[in-house]
C-alpha cells in the first residue's frame, strides 16, 4: 500500500516540497521497487496545485530567491519549487561525488555508468511529473531570456555536469584511457563500458541558445581531446620502437593493421565524430612522421618488383597530403631509366642497320606493359601515376639510344613493324593475335611525338603492300587505319583511305577494260593480247614517284600500252597517265633451258622483262647493246642484270667480271631450277635505303607547310594576335603530329610576312592579311 501522505496543502510551500521530496527521492534511489500510479499522480497533482494556488503561504526560509513580489502567482511559486529541486539534486550529486572517491579505474567506470543510468532514468520521470512547471513557469522564464533556467530534465543534466562531472571526469577518463590502452596492447576489454561513457559525455553537451538541442562540446573537450592526445603518444612510442627493430616493409604492415584497428574502434564503441581527427592523428604519427623512411624504401621496392609492398606503401602514403609526390617523381625516373636501359640493350645487341623493328618495339612494349600493370595493381590507376608513366614512356620512346640521331627513328621502326605484321609472310599471325599486336602498336604510337613521320612511312609501305598485292588481310588493314583515325582524326588517315578506294576503282576499271577489248578488238588481236592488269592511282594520295630513268618500252607490250591509253582517255578525257615502270612486273615463259621440257615462268620486273625479251632474237649481247636498247640508267640496269647472273639465267663474259661496259651477257641454256616459277624480281637493298632517306627529306618539307598552314589558320580566325601567343597556339595545333621548334615556327612566320599573308602591328602583334 502506498505510504504517501495525503496531497499537501496547495498553498503551503514547505508542506508541498516535503511531499515532493519524498517522492523524488524514491524515484531517484529506489525506482526499481516500483511506484504506483497513485503516488506518481500525486506528485504531478501537487506540483500542479502548488503552481496554481493564488495565495501561497510564503515561507521565506525555503524561498531561495526573493523577487520582491513583482511576479504574479504561478510564476513566483514555480520558482520556489524549481530552486528546491536544484538544491535537492546538488545534494544528491554531492553524495555521489563522495562515494566515487572509493573507486578507481574500471570500478569507477562501473560506478559512474551505474549512477548515470539511474540518475537519467529518474530525471525523465521527474521531468514528466514537473511538466506543469516546465510548461508555464520555466517556459515564461526562458521566454524572458533568463539565464540558467532549463526544463527540469535539462536541469538534471546541468547539475550533473556542475556538481559531479567536473570533478570526476578526469578520473573517469583515466579509467577509459587505461582500458583502451589495454586493448591496444592486445587484451580483451568490455567495450560497452567505454561506449556508455561516450554516450553520457555526449548527453552533457547542451546548446546554450537552444536547450532542446545538444552539442558535442563537452564530449570533444573532455573525451575526444584526451583520447587523441593519448593515442598520439602511444603510437609515437610504438612506431619509433617498431621501426628501430623491424624492416620498413614490416612497419608498413604494422601501420596498416593499426590504422584499420583504430577505424574499427570507432565503429564499435566510439562516437563517429572522432573518426576524422582520430584518423588524422594516427596518420600523422604512423605515416607522416615516418614518410622519409617510406620514401627512401620506394626505390628498393621498385628495383625488386615488390608489387604487394608497393601497393601497401601507396595506400599508406595516399592517406597523407603530399605523401605520394616523391613516389611519383621516383616512379617516373625509374620507368624512364628502365625504358632507356631496355633500348640500350637491344641497341647494343644489334647493329644500327640491323635492328629488327619487332625487337625494338617489343622492348618498348615490355617496359610499358610491366609498369602499366604496376600502376593498375599497386597504384589503383591513380591518374597522377598514369601521367608519370605516360611522361616516362614519352621520354624513352622518343629519346633513347636508337633515336640518338633523330627522334624520327621510333616512328620509322614502328611503321616498319606494322608493315611486317600486315604483310603476307610465312609466319603470318593469327587473326586475333594480329589484332592484339596492332593494339600494342597503338600503345607505342600514342607516345610517338613525330606522328607525321609514322604517317609518311606507313603510307609508303601501305602503298607498296597494295601495289604489290602483298597485304595479308584487308580486314586488318582497315582495322589499323581505323585505329589511326581514332587517334589522330580524319585528316591523318584521309590519304590512306583514298588509297584503298583507288584499289577498288582499279578493280572495276580492269573489268571494264576487258569488256572494252572484247567489244573493240578482232579475234586475232584478242588472241595475241598480253594478259594485263593495271592500277590507276591518284597522284595526290599515293606516295609514289615517277621513275627516274628513261626506258624504252619493249615492243611486245607497246600495243597493250597504247590500247589502254586509248581506252582510258576515252573514258576520262583530260587526265594524264604516268606509267610507273619501276613498280610494274610481269611473268615471262622461258623455253630456252635444255634441262626442262616444261617452260620456266620467270617472275620479273618490267625492266628485267625488257632485257630478257631481247634474247628472243639473239643469245648474246654486249652490255652496251642492252644499255642502248632498253636505255635504262646504270642504277637500274646493273642490279637487274646482277639478279640474272646470280640466278644463272645469263652468264657474264669474261666470266666473273663485274657487270658494266665491256662485258657480254650470254643466255645460259643450261639453266636449272627446282621450281618452275622463279622469282627474279627482287628489291635492291640500296634502293630501300634511298627510299628511307627520301622519306625523311619530304618530311622536312611537309613540316614547313604544316606549320605555315597552321599559322595561317590561326591568324585567319584570330585576325590579330601577339607573337608569343601565335607561337604557343601553333605548337598546340601541331603537337599531335610532331613537336615544332620555336625557331622553325619563327622562320615560317618570316616567310608568311614576306608573302604578305601576315603583317606586323604595333606592340609585338601580328595581323592577318586576307
Amino acid at each position: 500500500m502506498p505510504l504517501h501522505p495525503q496531497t499537501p496543502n496547495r498553498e503551503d510551500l514547505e508542506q508541498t516540497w516535503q511531499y515532493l521530496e519524498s517522492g523524488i527521492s524514491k524515484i531517484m534511489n529506489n525506482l526499481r521497487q516500483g511506484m504506483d500510479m497513485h503516488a506518481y499522480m500525486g506528485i504531478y497533482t501537487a506540483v500542479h496545485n502548488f503552481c496554481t494556488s493564488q495565495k501561497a503561504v510564503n515561507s521565506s526560509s525555503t524561498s531561495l530567491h526573493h523577487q520582491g513580489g513583482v511576479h504574479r502567482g504561478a510564476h513566483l511559486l514555480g520558482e520556489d519549487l524549481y530552486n528546491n529541486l536544484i538544491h535537492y539534486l546538488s545534494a544528491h550529486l554531492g553524495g555521489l561525488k563522495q562515494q566515487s572517491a572509493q573507486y578507481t579505474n574500471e570500478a569507477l567506470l562501473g560506478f559512474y555508468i551505474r549512477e548515470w543510468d539511474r540518475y537519467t532514468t529518474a530525471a525523465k520521470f521527474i521531468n514528466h511529473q514537473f511538466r506543469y512547471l516546465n510548461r508555464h513557469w520555466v517556459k515564461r522564464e526562458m521566454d524572458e531570456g533568463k539565464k540558467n533556467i532549463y526544463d527540469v530534465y535539462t536541469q538534471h543534466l546541468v547539475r550533473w555536469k556542475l556538481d559531479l562531472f567536473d570533478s570526476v571526469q578526469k578520473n573517469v577518463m583515466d579509467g577509459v584511457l587505461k582500458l583502451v590502452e589495454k586493448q591496444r596492447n592486445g587484451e580483451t576489454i568490455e567495450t560497452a563500458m567505454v561506449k556508455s561513457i561516450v554516450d553520457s559525455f555526449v548527453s552533457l553537451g547542451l546548446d546554450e541558445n537552444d536547450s532542446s538541442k545538444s552539442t558535442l562540446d563537452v564530449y570533444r573537450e573532455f573525451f575526444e581531446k584526451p583520447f587523441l592526445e593519448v593515442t598520439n603518444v602511444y603510437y609515437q612510442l610504438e612506431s619509433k620502437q617498431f621501426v628501430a627493430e623491424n624492416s620498413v616493409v614490416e612497419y608498413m604492415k604494422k601501420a596498416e593493421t593499426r590504422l584499420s584497428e583504430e577505424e574499427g574502434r570507432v565503429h564499435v564503441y566510439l562516437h563517429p565524430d572522432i573518426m576524422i581527427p582520430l584518423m588524422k592523428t594516427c596518420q600523422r604519427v604512423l605515416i607522416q612522421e615516418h614518410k622519409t623512411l617510406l620514401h627512401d624504401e620506394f626505390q628498393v621496392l621498385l628495383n625488386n618488383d615488390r608489387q604487394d609492398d608497393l601497393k601497401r606503401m601507396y595506400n599508406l602514403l595516399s592517406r597523407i597530403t603530399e605523401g605520394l609526390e616523391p613516389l611519383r617523381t621516383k616512379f617516373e625516373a625509374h620507368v624512364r631509366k628502365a625504358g632507356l636501359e631496355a633500348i640500350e640493350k637491344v641497341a647494343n645487341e644489334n647493329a644500327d642497320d640491323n635492328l629488327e623493328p619487332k625487337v625494338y618495339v617489343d622492348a618498348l612494349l615490355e617496359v610499358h606493359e610491366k609498369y602499366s600493370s604496376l600502376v593498375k595493381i599497386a597504384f589503383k590507376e591513380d591518374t597522377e601515376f598514369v601521367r608519370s608513366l605516360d611522361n616516362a614512356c614519352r621520354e624513352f620512346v622518343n629519346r633513347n639510344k636508337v633515336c640518338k640521331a633523330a627522334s624520327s627513328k621510333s616512328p620509322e621502326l614502328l611503321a616498319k613493324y606494322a608493315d611486317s605484321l600486315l604483310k603476307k609472310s610465312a609466319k603470318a599471325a593469327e587473326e586475333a593475335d594480329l589484332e592484339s599486336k596492332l593494339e600494342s602498336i597503338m600503345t607505342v604510337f600514342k607516345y610517338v611525338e613525330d606522328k607525321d613521320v609514322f604517317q609518311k612511312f606507313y603510307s609508303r609501305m601501305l602503298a607498296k603492300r597494295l601495289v604489290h598485292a602483298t597485304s595479308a588481310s584487308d580486314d586488318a588493314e582497315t582495322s589499323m587505319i581505323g585505329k589511326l583515325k581514332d587517334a589522330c582524326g580524319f585528316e591523318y588517315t584521309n590519304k590512306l583511305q583514298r588509297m584503298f578506294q583507288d584499289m577498288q576503282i582499279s578493280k572495276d576499271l580492269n573489268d571494264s577494260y576487258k569488256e572494252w577489248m572484247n567489244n573493240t578488238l578482232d579475234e586475232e588481236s584478242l588472241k595475241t593480247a598480253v594478259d594485263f592488269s593495271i592500277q590507276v592511282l591518284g597522284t595526290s594520295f599515293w606516295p609514289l614517284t615517277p621513275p627516274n630513268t628513261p626506258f624504252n618500252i619493249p615492243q611486245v607490250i607497246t600495243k597493250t600500252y597504247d590500247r589502254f591509253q586509248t581506252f582510258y582517255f576515252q573514258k576520262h578525257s583530260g587526265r594524264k597517265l604516268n606509267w610507273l615502270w619501276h613498280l610494274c612486273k610481269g611473268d615471262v615463259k622461258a623455253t630456252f633451258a635444255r634441262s626442262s621440257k616444261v617452260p620456266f615462268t620467270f617472275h620479273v620486273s618490267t625492266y628485267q622483262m625488257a632485257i630478257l625479251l631481247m634474247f628472243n632474237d639473239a643469245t648474246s649481247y654486249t652490255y652496251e647493246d642492252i644499255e642502248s636498247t632498253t636505255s635504262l640508267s646504270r642504277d637500274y640496269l646493273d642490279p637487274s642484270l646482277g639478279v640474272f647472273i646470280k640466278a644463272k639465267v645469263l652468264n657474264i663474259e669474261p666470266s666473273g667480271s663485274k657487270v658494266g661496259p665491256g662485258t657480254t651477257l650470254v643466255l645460259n641454256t643450261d639453266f636449272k631450277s627446282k621450281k618452275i616459277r622463279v622469282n627474279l624480281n627482287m628489291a635492291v637493298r640500296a634502293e630501300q635505303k634511298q627510299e628511307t632517306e627520301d622519306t625523311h627529306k619530304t618530311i622536312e618539307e611537309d613540316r614547313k607547310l604544316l606549320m605555315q598552314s597552321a599559322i595561317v589558320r590561326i591568324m585567319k580566325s584570330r585576325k590579330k594576335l601577339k607573337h608569343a601567343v601565335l607561337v604557343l597556339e601553333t605548337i598546340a595545333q601541331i603537337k599531335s603530329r610532331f613537336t615544332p621548334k620555336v625557331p622553325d615556327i619563327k622562320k615560317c612566320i618570316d616567310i608568311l610576312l614576306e608573302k604578305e599573308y601576315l603583317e606586323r602591328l604595333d606592340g609585338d602583334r601580328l595581323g592577318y592579311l586576307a
Partner: protein
Amino acid sequence: WNLELAIDSYYQNPNASSGTGPTNQNAINAIFDQFKQPNDSPDTYSIGATMAYFDALGLQLDDVTVVPLSKALSSETMGEFTRKGFTDGWMQLGADSLPRMQAKLQELRQQLDTNDEYFKEVYKWAFGWAKAPGGKALALENAIEMWKLLLTSRFGGNGHLDRWAEFLEEKWKKSIPKDTWNMFYEFIVDAKSDPTLTGYDENGSYPSTIDAYVDYYRNQEQ
C-alpha cells in the same frame, strides 16, 4: 605629315615661304625644266637631271637629307623624280626658288635629327624607295648602304650597326625583306638601351635574321 610640316614651317618662318606672297607653281615648274636632261622624257628626272639639280642646291648624293627630300617630293625610286611629285612637293613645302629650297633642306634635315616619329617614318619609307622597282626585297648591298646612311649618326655608337653589316655580308648573304628592314629599326632602338643584348629573347617576335645576328654577336663576345 607634309601638310603639318608645311604649316609648321609657315608659322616658324613666315618670310621664307610667303613673305613675298603665295608659292608660285609656275616658278617650280620652271626650275624643274631648268635641270631636265636632253634624253629625259618631259615629266621625269633621270639620275643625270637629279644630279644637276642637287648640284645647284649644293646637296651631295650621299647626304642623308636626300632621303627626306625624296620622300617629300614623292620619288618612287632612288635618283628619280616626276614633275607632279616635284611641283606638288615643293608647293606643299612652300618653296619656289633655289634659295628657298635650300632653306627648306635645312629644315628637313633638322626635323630628321630631332623628331623621332618623323625619322621612323622616313626610315620605313626608305625601304620601298631604295629597292629595285618590282622586287620584294632590298638588295643586301643597298640595304647596308641605306642603313649606314640613315642610322650611323643616331645609332652608330655601340658598334651594332657595323657588326650587323659584317654579319649580313659574312653569314646572311641574301637580300633583305621588308619585315627585317622594319624590325631592325626596333632592334637598333632596343640595342641603344641594352648594348650587350642581355635582354634579347630569341623566342620573341623579332624575325629569325635578327635572332641569327644576336647568336652571332653572342658567340663573338664569348
